[in-house]
């Protein structure tokens, strides 16, 4: 992208089918940038690089409008006739419409997910003003938006900072809310509010399902310490202090005893997640391994694993858990989580 976006906020796209419009769960960003005096309104999934938007609309100033979709126009409360906050992009030059839904944590005290807070409305107003070709001091607006607070009370999370996040193109420092925020789970807008209540509860309640635990933990890496008394994070603070990191949790002192006490079926399960070459190498009678990239067939790989005893497999697992490559990947995974990769990771870990 040749220029940094003027404004960015968390939003999902909607797909239209037959006169019905359905929100797409992919977490994304809606953003506007200006190039050669033309405006681009773009949408991309959060996992995509900023130079690769799925939607890139060329907007002639004055042609497009961006307003909340309201069920009671003129009423004091601004809310959509759905279970989420919908914005609609319309054109005076055509009858085409685009719908987007806000993905940041809703700020309604009682959890009405269709209600637009002051902050939400202002975001829409900034976008609309930009589309009209007005000169908007976006920084000033963003500051005002942040200071406007959560409106009718906040669900305990740093709701403001997480709604909008101006992409850092050079990515050298991440300030403020390190990324997607707690509610980056995507999916039903109805669920967005829940996470703000469950997310911080790690230490607090008796843990049940391990999947939930891991998911809670992963979420909490993103949003920083929940249990600490200081809830405000000033944008000046470099790199949020992580709650804790994967390398600190999965030390050999923790993982090795786990392997030792694991059942054979657990061991087999874990082995399936390691590169097959590790098991091939373990074979006593290896032919000269001069090739750097053996590429065993899945059958050969499985045969190599099966040929080993459970103890031998445990040895390999322990060796891998102690390796610098594993530790490095824990580090980079922690950073990726902090920067907002939760949905992808959740899927990859099969937590859903």
């Amino acid at each position: 992208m040749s220029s940094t976006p003027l404004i960015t906020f968390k939003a999902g796209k909607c797909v239209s089918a037959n006169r019905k419009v359905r929100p797409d769960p992919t977490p994304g960003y809606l953003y506007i940038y200006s190039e050669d005096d033309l405006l681009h309104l773009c949408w991309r999934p959060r996992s995509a690089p900023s130079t690769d938007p799925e939607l890139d609309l060329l907007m002639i100033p004055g042609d497009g409008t961006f307003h909340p979709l309201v069920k009671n126009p003129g009423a004091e409360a601004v809310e959509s006739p759905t279970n989420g906050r919908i914005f609609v992009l319309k054109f005076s030059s055509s009858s085409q419409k685009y719908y987007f839904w806000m993905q940041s944590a809703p700020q309604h005290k009682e959890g009405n997910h269709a209600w637009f807070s002051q902050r939400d409305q202002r975001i829409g107003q900034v976008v609309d003003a930009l589309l009209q070709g007005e000169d908007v001091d976006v920084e000033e607006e963003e500051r005002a938006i942040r200071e406007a607070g959560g409106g009718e009370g906040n669900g305990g999370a740093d709701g403001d900072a997480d709604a909008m996040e101006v992409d850092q193109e050079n990515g050298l420092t991440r300030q403020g809310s390190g990324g997607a925020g707690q509610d980056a789970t995507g999916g039903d807008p109805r669920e967005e509010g829940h996470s703000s209540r469950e997310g911080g509860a790690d230490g607090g309640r008796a843990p049940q399902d391990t999947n939930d635990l891991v998911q809670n933990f992963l979420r909490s890496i993103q949003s920083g310490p929940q249990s600490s008394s200081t809830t405000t994070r000033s944008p000046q603070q470099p790199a949020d202090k992580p709650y804790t990191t994967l390398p600190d949790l999965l030390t050999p002192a923790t993982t090795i005893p786990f392997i030792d006490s694991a059942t054979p079926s657990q061991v087999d399960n874990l082995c399936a997640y390691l590169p097959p070459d590790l098991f091939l190498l373990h074979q006593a009678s290896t032919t000269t391994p001069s090739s750097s990239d053996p590429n065993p067939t899945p059958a050969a790989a499985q045969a190599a694993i099966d040929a080993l005893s459970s103890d031998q497999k445990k040895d390999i697992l322990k060796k891998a858990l102690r390796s610098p490559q594993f530790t490095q990947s824990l580090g980079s995974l922690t950073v990726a989580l902090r920067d907002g990769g939760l949905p992808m990771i959740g899927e990859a870990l099969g937590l859903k």
Partner: protein
Amino acid sequence: MSGGWNTIESDAGVFTFLIESLGVQNVQFEELISLDPESLQELNPIGVIFLFKYPTGEKAAKDKPLDGEFDYAALEGAEEEDGEPVWFAAQTIQNACGTQALLSVLLNKDGEAEEESGKITIGPNLKEFKDFTSAFPADLRGEALSNSDLIRDVHNSFARSSPFVSDETRLATEEDDVYHFIAYTSINDTLYELDGLQPAPIRHGDPGACPSEIFADAVVPVLKRRIQRYPQTEIRFNLLAMCEDLRIKAREIGDTALLAREEEKRRGWRWENALRRHNFVGFVGEVMKGVTGLKVREGTHEVWIEEAKAATRKRVDERRAKGGGGGGGGDEMDVS
């Protein structure tokens, strides 16, 4: 913007398998632990790759290098008896500099390995690249390198394991050190220093004064002078010798112990590379679930998290107190 090139470690195993994947035959790398001519000579080196922390204070001298002479003429290879022109490329991408240093030796040693001593079989891919870029000036060669899909893809396949491709991702545990790779080799019987950040190859000593046979002897004092340029306490550097696959020599002279050691070393490299290229996300997830399950059963779940939190806090505090110094990669070398 990294330009699509990821960082790779300066490790003998990584480099050996990297060039093998590019099609080079029978060449390996060996880490040098001490800088003395005898041990270097043992390896019969084709070239030496020197990695050091790039001092941002030291500017690239434009008219004269700090040691040696710029040899622009070598780029042309004007006279027939001068031998082939030196293949030299300007560095355009920071993260590619390791591979670039390797190539700057390899592409100058292209020949029939069996017939001419000191030559190596670089394989069809690199041969094609060399021919394609033979008429280019140095900066265009650098561009060609950074745009080469094949070379970049092989390079990146040895990069540190990262589950997510993101320009914004930074390893939380690393310092932001800038490391630079340069190569030394004998070309046309002359000792050259090939540094992509310099405007030309740097000649050390007189032309024709360094046939490949005495390369080891000639390069050691040059390296020592280089190392002495930096404050003794600060510098971290790494020296890798490029040489013929040591197993070949072992087989020829019937040294079974050496052969066994080299095979063992290769297996170690293969193990490390398998882990290096592996995407650990799935494995980490399973381990997390398993460990969490175990801790819950034992009733130690909360203690575990608290201890980890304390460790994180401690490390952050220590780092802040230190002002973020120290750390970084690279092995220290004993120069005695």
